[in-house]
């Protein structure tokens, strides 16, 4: 930023309608937060209202990690909405970013298939060493969401990071991009559909959508908690696809334009 722009920004920050508006809005927000927090039971109260929920989830649903029980069972409908938000966000960003693709494609053909700049050796070695452990960690976090902290969302982002690390470790520009993009799209859609199908399964096999209709197993074992585990895996697949799709679309843009 130039010195002129900085002084202008400083002058604007000193006083003005925007500062006043921001101060008012922040004061209002602070008041709301204080009001909301004052209604809570003190931190660490064992007999708070969450106690009943935890008991339901641990003893009736056999989910050792009650947080994921809330996410995928008691509030499964909210999670359905959230994962569809992510799905639509990935869809929207790829539609927007592919808008200008056609002109890029021409440049790409003109540039031929020459490889881009070499990846640094340090990044290559570091990336190659980390991809395996990262994918294992991602799969662990997705599949053990009902037992330990984690779950589909967290594990999905870790898996997408592993995928991108593989890109980063290789010669990104030289990669033929069509195939992985299709795969990533299919992954995204499969995860989203799997969640919806399990939700409908509740209607078919039991009384309500998202009803936990699968056998619940023994608390603490890998195959337990019924649909909570299945939904966590579905979200894991969907999040992997969605995050990878958004990032590959952005990468495509950056790399294609940068290849002139």
């Amino acid at each position, binding site marked *: *930023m130039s010195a002129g722009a*900085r002084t202008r*920004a400083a002058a604007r920050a000193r006083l003005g309608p925007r500062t006043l508006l921001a101060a008012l809005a922040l004061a209002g927000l602070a008041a709301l937060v204080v009001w909301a927090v004052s209604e809570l039971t003190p*931190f660490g109260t064992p007999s708070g209202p969450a106690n009943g929920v935890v008991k339901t989830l641990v003893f009736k649903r056999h989910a050792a*990690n009650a*947080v*994921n029980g809330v996410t995928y069972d008691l509030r499964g409908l909210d999670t359905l909405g959230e994962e569809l938000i992510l799905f639509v966000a990935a869809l929207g960003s790829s539609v927007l970013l592919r808008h200008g693709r056609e002109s890029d494609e021409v440049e790409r053909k003109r540039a031929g298939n020459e490889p881009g700049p070499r990846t640094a050796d340090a990044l290559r070695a570091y990336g190659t060493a980390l991809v395996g452990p990262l994918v294992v960690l991602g799969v662990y*976090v997705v599949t053990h969401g009902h037992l330990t*902290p*984690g*779950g589909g*969302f*967290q594990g999905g*982002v*870790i898996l*997408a*990071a592993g995928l*991108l690390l593989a890109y980063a470790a290789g010669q990104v520009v030289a990669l033929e991009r069509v195939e992985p993009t299709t795969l990533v799209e299919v992954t995204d859609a499969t995860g989203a559909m799997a969640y919806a199908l399990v939700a409908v399964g509740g209607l078919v096999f039991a009384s309500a959508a998202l009803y936990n209709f699968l056998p619940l197993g023994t608390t603490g074992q890998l195959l337990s908690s019924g649909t909570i585990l299945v939904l966590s895996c579905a979200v894991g697949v969907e999040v992997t696809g969605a*995050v990878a799709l*958004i*990032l590959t679309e*952005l*990468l495509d*843009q*950056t790399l294609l*334009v*940068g290849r002139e």
Partner: protein
Amino acid sequence: MNVLHIVALAAVAVGGTAVVLMREPVRQALVAGVFGFTLAFLFFSFQAPDVALSQIVVATVAVPLMVLLALTKLRRDEEDDDR
């Protein structure tokens, strides 16, 4: 409320202020990543490891990468316009 909570809350306050005061977008993205870590520490100290894990993956993987890639694209476009 113990010492750990107070340290975590102070770190979040300092980190958030640092993100706002950092005016250069690329550095801001990195400082925001560090701020995300302080938030994760705060959640962890309040016994919410699930939220802390989400915070770590979002703050270290998703947000900085998307911001940096978007900035690269924007700067390339600006260079093109200058030409």
